[in-house]
């Protein structure tokens, strides 16, 4: 079998040289180099499953939205039969964008340049002045359809890939699927978006945000220290604002760079019920603190859709934040309220590459379709205030990544390294019901290191 050689950059550096397997370091150069960026667009965003949105954004036949899949604009449509399609948003004639809009509804997508027309499934309908046959005779109409991506809907989430014959979405998720199912396949009707996503630009390389999404729990301690200083998480520890007790749990790593932080609920359950979690049944725990975004009335749905093991994990250390490789962050968090209750917040972010030094932060706010209106309202407000554009938590993240990107341009800085040397030595929690690489204790660097290992593999063309 042919072993692919690691790609070589213009100055002779190989991708392999950027990731030091022995010392768990990554050269900073990776965060700004234009050559590396171009390679990523081909070998990562051009090959793997990319998250684009939620099917509730195109609920009706003819609905469409435009999004970016790596560095390409794509058109996401729903056809008359209800099927969701993802296509390159480029007219096959002269390369004009088929749609210049963010969203709309039409049964015919007509390019404004020369008028070539396409169906929502991408089929070429025809070109103006039919009798002149302006699309020529060299290619058949069938060959002139929009370039189609392969699509998967997972719990309503729209993923697409240009790798038409590549691994299935399930293979891509691997063992991590067991955990994502607890979030996205937990209810009868599933999640939906509460509106279109917030979008804003951050002058940072997409990987500064991407690698953080691979379950960097540690940064919360310092970057989000304010949470311990004021508000509902405030610590009564004489101003130390020590958030470290929140950082214990278990972390799921994946050979495909996916990552989940499963955070211990014991303290929250104690606070809400005044009882020891061990003295409560699974049912009692679920009713005392239903999963983020669910109500006690919805608890029976969980039992229908999830296994005993998943229910056990969900009431012990549920996944609360993490990523789907390469550029997705999910949050299913519990936000303590001033009145002692807890309101869930469900978000998804995509960090869309916009060149080596820029990313577009896309933030969706979600809720269960059959959650009561009052809960959806609370979740939306809570999420808007803490995450995304004006979110008091994430405004500190988006102000940090640009400095890493700038530092990675320095002649000396680019030769320095990102370090992932805090290594788990614990292994699986005793009695843990779930699969995969999982370690217990205070958050460590393993999940992010695995993120980079998959990045390296993909960049080397090993997959």
């Amino acid at each position, binding site marked *: 079998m042919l072993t692919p050689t690691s790609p070589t950059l213009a100055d002779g550096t190989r991708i392999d040289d950027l990731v030091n397997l022995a010392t768990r370091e990554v050269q900073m150069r990776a965060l700004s180099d234009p050559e590396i960026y171009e390679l990523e667009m081909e070998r990562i965003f051009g090959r793997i499953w990319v998250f684009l949105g939620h099917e509730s954004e195109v609920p009706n036949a003819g609905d469409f939205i435009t999004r970016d899949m790596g560095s390409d604009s794509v058109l996401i449509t729903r056809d008359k039969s209800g099927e969701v399609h993802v296509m390159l948003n480029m007219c096959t004639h002269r390369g004009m964008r088929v749609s210049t809009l963010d969203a709309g509804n039409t049964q015919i997508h007509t390019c404004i340049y020369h008028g070539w027309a396409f169906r929502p499934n991408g089929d070429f309908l025809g070109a103006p002045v039919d009798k002149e046959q302006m699309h020529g005779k060299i290619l058949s109409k069938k060959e002139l359809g929009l370039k189609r991506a392969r699509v998967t809907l997972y719990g309503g989430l729209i993923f697409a890939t240009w790798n038409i014959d590549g691994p299935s979405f399930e293979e891509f998720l691997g063992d991590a699927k067991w955990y994502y199912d607890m979030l996205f396949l937990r209810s009868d009707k599933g999640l939906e978006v509460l509106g279109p996503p917030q979008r804003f630009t951050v002058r940072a390389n997409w990987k500064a945000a991407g690698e953080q999404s691979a379950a960097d729990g540690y940064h919360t301690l310092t970057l989000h*220290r304010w949470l311990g200083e004021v508000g509902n998480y405030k610590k009564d520890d004489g101003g130390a604002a020590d958030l470290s007790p929140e950082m214990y749990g278990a972390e799921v790593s994946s050979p495909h760079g996916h990552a989940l932080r499963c955070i211990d609920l014991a303290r929250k359950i104690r606070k809400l019920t005044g009882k020891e979690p061990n003295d409560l049944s699974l049912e009692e725990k679920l009713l005392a603190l239903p999963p983020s975004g669910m109500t006690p009335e919805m608890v029976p749905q969980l039992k229908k859709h999830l296994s005993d093991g998943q229910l056990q994990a969900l009431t012990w250390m549920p996944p609360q934040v993490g990523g789907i490789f390469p550029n997705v962050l999910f949050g299913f968090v519990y936000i303590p309220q001033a009145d002692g209750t807890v309101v869930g917040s469900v978000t998804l972010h995509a960090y869309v590459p916009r060149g080596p030094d820029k990313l577009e932060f896309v933030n969706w706010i979600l809720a269960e379709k059959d959650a009561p209106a009052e809960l959806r309202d609370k979740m939306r407000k809570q999420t808007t205030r803490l995450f995304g554009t004006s979110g008091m938590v994430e405004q500190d993240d988006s102000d940090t990544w640009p400095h890493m990107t700038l530092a990675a341009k320095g002649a000396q800085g680019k030769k320095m390294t990102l370090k992932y040397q805090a290594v788990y030595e614990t292994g699986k929690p005793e009695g843990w019901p779930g699969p995969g690489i999982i370690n217990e204790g205070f958050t460590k660097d393993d999940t992010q290191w695995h993120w980079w290992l998959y990045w390296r593999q993909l960049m080397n063309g090993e997959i």
Partner: protein
Amino acid sequence: MSDFQPGQTVPIGSPTYNRVLEFLYIEARLLDETRLKEWAATLAEDLLYTAPLRETRPVSQMPASYVRTTQHFEDDWRSIQGRVMRLTGTKSAWAEDPPSRTRRLVTNVMVEQGDKPDELRVRSYLLVTRSRFNFDEFDLISAERQDVLRDVGGTFKLARREILLDQAVLGTPNLAIFL
């Protein structure tokens, strides 16, 4: 807020108009000088403070270009106080520490009688220049603001603000500043 109708505004240069202008200028100064607690004291306790998302839509669908199902800001008096508390009462509000250097340029002010006798509807254009660190680029934030000002014992309080941003994808990394 209803669509703007020429000829129904409080005359430019009238005493009421000047009072509104003074309020907006002082507000801009308080925010630019990060005197956030003083600014927060000008807010009515039933405040609604929102910033719709924008989508690129065709001329025929302009109302749909304003998205209010999900927004950039969806705040009330209490949550704004929380934001101010984070910015003024902690040592870790990094998104604005060191603070941005901002100029809030407020123009094109139009004032109308509000729905209640003690309220005025105020539209203004806002251009914020935001400079961070030693970056040579400014973040520019342009918007129309549609406010309701309430006269409380001779002093205006901001009772409603909707910030209609012009960008579908904002060109600033966060809204850690008030608009």
